[in-house]
């Protein structure tokens, strides 16, 4: 018998890394930046967080280090894409490949060691789950109610117009990318510190890419990101439960479920945007386009 409450609590845990990463990427995309390096930033956060938590014995310090690590590597992307005007698709991909390699190299000494245990918050949920849930309304408020959020959306919608009104397009985008990096770092560290409790090479296993798909699914709205992360968490938990229950489907095939679900969700939401006539919920107008102003 599966207890629905315990399944929901497991779901919240499984959703948290994706939630952090997709909220960060959502803000970057609202500023007009398509950073495909989420996977790379997550894995860097996973290692930086694990290493710091392992060394200090404090998960909180670990998450702090993860945010710093994710930000640091995201600044490579920011420099290349904003100042050297590189293609954002290729640069994000490079960030992922680089991050995977870098962490594989520096992570060797940590293999086989254990993370310190997470302190629990209210309702038997750890503090990071709570932080992720609180981040949703905060990001929503920032984007839709604050002046800075309005400027950020304006930059993402039409960077030429924002520039013509005197807003520093590049600086705003760099800040958005850095926020994306910090959030991806936190998401990655959640996997290593709170879920798996150890470091293994490539342990994010595509979570960053799933987060990118969740951003599309969310229609660039933080509330949608929460729904998407929960959906993903649900599929993951269900798949694990089925494995544990010993159903006759091979484990390898069951473990495809999150990826197939992501494709399915992507298809459904894209089809809805393509065939539905609503103009709302479309991608930011300047998404992925490099900006260069002559002065």
């Amino acid at each position, binding site marked *: 018998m599966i207890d629905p409450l315990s399944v929901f609590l497991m779901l919240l845990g499984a959703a948290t890394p994706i939630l952090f990463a997709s909220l960060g990427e959502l803000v970057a995309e609202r500023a007009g930046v398509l950073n495909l390096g989420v996977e790379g930033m997550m894995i860097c956060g996973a290692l930086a967080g694990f290493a710091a938590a392992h060394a200090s014995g404090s998960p909180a310090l670990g998450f702090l280090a993860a945010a710093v690590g994710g930000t640091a590597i995201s600044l490579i992307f920011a420099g*290349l894409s904003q100042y*050297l005007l*590189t293609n954002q698709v*290729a640069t994000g991909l*490079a960030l992922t490949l680089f991050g*995977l*390699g870098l962490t594989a*190299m520096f992570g060797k000494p940590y293999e086989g060691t254990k993370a310190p245990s997470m302190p629990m918050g209210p309702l038997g949920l750890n503090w990071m789950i709570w932080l992720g849930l609180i981040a949703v309304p905060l990001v929503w408020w920032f984007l839709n109610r604050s002046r800075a959020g309005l400027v950020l959306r304006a930059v993402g919608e039409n960077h030429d117009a924002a520039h013509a009104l005197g807003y520093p397009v590049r600086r705003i985008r760099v800040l958005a990318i850095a926020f994306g990096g910090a959030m991806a770092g936190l998401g990655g560290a959640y996997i290593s510190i709170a879920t798996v409790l150890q470091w293994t090479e490539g342990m994010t296993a595509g979570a960053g890419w799933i987060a990118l798909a969740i951003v599309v699914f969310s229609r660039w709205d933080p509330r949608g990101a929460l729904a998407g992360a929960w959906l993903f968490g649900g599929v993951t938990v269900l798949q694990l439960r089925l494995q544990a229950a010993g159903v006759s489907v091979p484990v390898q095939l069951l473990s495809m479920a999150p990826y197939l679900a992501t494709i399915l969700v992507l298809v459904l939401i894209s*089809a809805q945007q393509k065939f539905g006539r609503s103009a709302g919920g479309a991608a930011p107008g300047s998404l992925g386009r490099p900006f260069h102003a002559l002065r």
Partner: protein
Amino acid sequence: MLRLEPRASASLGWQIATPVLAVLATMIAGGILFAALGFDPLAAIRTIFWDPLFGTAAGYSRPQLLVKAGPLILIACGLALGFRAGIWNIGAEGQYIIGGICGAAVALATYPNEGIWIFPAMIAAGALGGMAWGLIPALLRNWFGASEILVSLMLVYVAQRITAWMSFGPLKNPEGFGFPGSRNLQQYEPASNPELIAGTGLHWGVVAAGVALIATWFIVSRHILGFHIRTAGAAPRAARFAGVKPSWLVALCLGFSGALAGMAGLFEAAGPGGQITENFGSGYGFTAIIVAFLGRLHPVGILLGGLLLALTYIGGELAQLTMQMPAASVQVFQGMLLFFILGFDILTRFRIRRVR
């Protein structure tokens, strides 16, 4: 202060110079990294870039150059066509895996029969398998507008799980004492992809890579199809005005690059790799993306880029053996290389001027 001024057309000189600069910058940055890790940077660079070709063990490592460069070039040729059109197939790794599985499945189905048709049938199956895997994101984009970037990448993870399942299940060697993994195709002569000239590393996959290079050169620079692909990448509306159907181009580019990646997978499974195992996907599909960019999407560049990245693989292994350098340092190196290629590209598109 420096100012960027856009050039009307890309500078040819810089187009040739920037990949060279990127390689040099990677060596310097890599050297600094190695020094920071406590290795002698000059020795490390020499071990990676010089010893595989001219060092004491060169007799062993030189043939490996073609063995590794073959699949990289084959995959990169297909990717470059799509990248030129702005169609981002980043799931070549998955197409490579599925191609390998399909080709190997044909061989294992015919085992232990003889026949010269077996190997060609395997190539066809590999190409078709890769093509089918590549067409999934193409059709989902054409029908529903789903991002081919994300779908093709998700399918890599799916393909990795399929290989794991295959090597534990349907394709497992019945005489393998319970170990996962398929029969070794190198020991099944009609299905094997042997070294054609001893000591060179040349196998059918390398031959296919050469043919692919010539074919892509022909398509890109002589055929109207290549013109349409380049137009679609540079100015999609102009392409539609010229009569190009975007959906057809998406299917063509993803299908073609999928077929080449699938063939690369099959040649690997029947040749150097020898069998389908859980870890059959070895990252060629991702490294080929770097090859395509390093080669500036041009066949000659892809040839040189493929050889260079093959060298880093071999040199990396050598450095691991002789200097106890971490295995992942090659990956870091390749990632840095892609950063530098992309970063230096600004010199081809902009003039840099100093202002006041």
